[in-house]
């Protein structure tokens, strides 16, 4: 910055790298991967491509599903009855996981967690945020969901039930938030932009700009 006098006493060394020694499981992953490549089960490019595909998934897919549900009552009914089939009808294949859509209403607010590990609808929402996998979120959101939601800036009134969904087995979940007031007549694409990742986990709600 031009106005900076730069007479302060700090050095300009870059922050230290974060690459410590490999952990047990990191070493195991590398060993297994290299063996599989050596045995020509797959190639290094297949591994790279698989990671690229996983990283390419984003919450935009989930937002499309929600916006569709907001604008098409028949689709919403189908989504609530069978989440996986409804997504497939939009060309979004969820693989072996079974999707359960849970709907926020005037009287119910839903929030998703996996207390056992970090089960997450990656096909719809992409890579989970770090906090979703953290023990603090997993332990606390089942125990004191309202306090956790408050820390996310989300105050749920006392006359709205908070319904936590613990994703412990073969189901995956997406929250269908309430469509914000003042969005009547909006195009689906414009609506989808309101539906963030955190809205579909249930730690916040869509806001009109």
């Amino acid at each position, binding site marked *: 910055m031009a106005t900076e006098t730069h007479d302060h006493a700090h050095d300009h060394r870059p922050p230290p790298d974060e690459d410590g020694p490999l952990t047990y499981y990191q070493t195991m992953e590398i060993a297994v991967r290299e063996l599989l490549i050596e045995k020509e089960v797959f190639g290094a490019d297949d591994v790279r491509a698989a990671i690229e595909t996983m990283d390419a998934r984003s919450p935009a897919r989930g937002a499309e599903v929600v916006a569709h549900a907001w604008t098409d009552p028949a689709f919403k009914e189908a989504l609530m009855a069978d989440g996986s089939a409804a997504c497939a009808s939009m060309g979004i294949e969820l693989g072996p996981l079974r999707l359960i859509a849970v709907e926020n209403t005037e009287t119910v607010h839903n929030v998703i967690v996996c207390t056992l590990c970090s089960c997450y609808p990656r096909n719809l929402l992409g890579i989970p945020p770090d906090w979703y996998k953290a023990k603090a979120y997993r332990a606390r959101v089942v125990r004191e969901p309202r306090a956790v939601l408050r820390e996310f800036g989300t105050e749920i009134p006392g006359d709205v039930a*908070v319904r936590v969904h*613990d994703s412990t087995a073969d189901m995956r979940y997406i929250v269908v938030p309430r469509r914000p007031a003042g969005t009547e007549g909006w195009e689906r694409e414009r609506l989808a932009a309101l539906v963030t990742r955190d809205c579909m986990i249930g730690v916040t709600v869509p806001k009109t700009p």
Partner: protein
Amino acid sequence: MAARFAVGDRVAVRRAFPLGHIRTPYYARGAVGDVERICGAFGNPEELAFGRRDGPKQTLYRVRFAQTVLWPDYDGPPGDTIDIELYEHWLEPATE
């Protein structure tokens, strides 16, 4: 295979503490709730974890618990709930 419990049935989670790959959260063991839905039949993860893939499938349920049942000092309205996925062999008819 026929599901042992129906939607709306009161069920109790077994208060058991076996070793292995268990998908029943500790905080739900011994708790009583209501079957919210039947999710279908799935491989038993306690067997799959050891590579045993040929065992019988287990009916999976979603059971709804009142927060005040799970946490006696729960700080929130009595209508707050948790839905948990539980395999049939972890459930018993509730006696209470």
